[in-house]
């Protein structure tokens, strides 16, 4: 695998920082809801003390809301942990769907800010890939960021994938790929370095609003 250029390494660090900040925001939202629910339970208890009567259904609903937020925070932390471990190995063999779903989870806030939704379409069979999980996530996140800035009319993005021979294709559907500035932005920043590192290339899809990334099942030089 080629050595990664230092400048792109700095970009990778910035990517790691942006994702970490986004995750911390998500956790803070969950904690804020738990805080308000706990506060309301206290308010209701004080009211019951002074005026009598407690709305049991409301208490149950608040308890359920706290449970939901704890589950949500637990999922966020699981994803954060998995994301942090993507730098453990320079190269690793992994299930692509699992990592695409991880990228979707850690990018959800980025897309929500543009009122976009993202769906990872299962391939119907396991597709494994041997490459750098961290830099693949960085590339996909960069492409999702571009798509969020060039949303299609549906404001929804489908990410699907398939294997043909030794090449894996990841298809992004739902952004304005035909707009003149789109591909310029896609190839901006660290894209070229990432594509070289992963031995990948990017091409317009066969249908409108599509873009495809082609990655070898095993990276060059391995």
């Amino acid at each position, binding site marked *: 695998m080629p050595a990664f250029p230092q400048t792109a390494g700095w970009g990778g660090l910035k990517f790691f920082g942006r994702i970490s*900040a986004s995750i*911390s*925001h998500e956790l*803070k*939202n969950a*904690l*804020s*809801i738990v*805080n*308000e*629910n706990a*506060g*309301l339970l206290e*308010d209701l208890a004080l*009211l019951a003390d002074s005026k009598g009567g407690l709305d049991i259904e409301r208490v149950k609903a*608040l308890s359920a*809301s706290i449970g*939901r*937020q704890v589950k949500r925070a637990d999922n966020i932390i699981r994803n954060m942990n998995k994301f942090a471990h993507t730098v453990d190995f320079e190269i690793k063999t992994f299930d692509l769907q699992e990592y695409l779903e991880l990228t979707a989870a850690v990018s959800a806030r980025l897309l*929500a*800010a*543009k*009122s976009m939704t993202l769906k990872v379409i299962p391939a119907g069979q396991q597709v494994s890939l041997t490459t750098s999980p961290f830099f693949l996530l960085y590339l996909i996140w960069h492409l999702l960021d571009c798509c969020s800035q060039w949303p299609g009319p549906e404001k929804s993005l489908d990410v699907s994938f398939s294997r043909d021979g030794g090449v894996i294709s990841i298809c992004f559907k739902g952004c304005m790929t035909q707009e003149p500035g789109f591909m310029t932005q896609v190839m901006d920043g660290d894209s070229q370095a990432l594509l070289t590192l992963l031995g990948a290339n990017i091409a317009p899809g066969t249908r409108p609003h599509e873009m495809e990334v082609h990655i070898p099942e095993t990276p060059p030089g391995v």
Partner: protein
Amino acid sequence: MKHVRVLLVDDEEDLVVTLAERLAIRGFDADWAVTADSALELLRGKTYDVAVLDVKLPGISGLELKNHMAEIDSGLNFIFMTGHGSQEDFMAGSAAAGESNYLWKPVDIDALAQKIKRMANRDN
């Protein structure tokens, strides 16, 4: 006694519903919205003393929403809430709302109630 009217806007429904209920217990007339569009619709139908806005909403920033709301009601007061800890967000929020009208999540309900009352009393 006239109730102070508050409009809370945040895309986290569980948060905004609970905050509205806690403010109602403290004597406020509190409504809530989870999107910018529904907030603007509520504002067109009712006069509020204070709007409490999340800094980041889907598809629009709280600061942009503030400008749209001020076009409908130029006398409306604003408080911003944020879950972000970044200096950049703090600067943007405090520049728009004033440092003292910018709250970090989780929000202290009594501090929020005091700010709302102070703003409403200043106008009356």
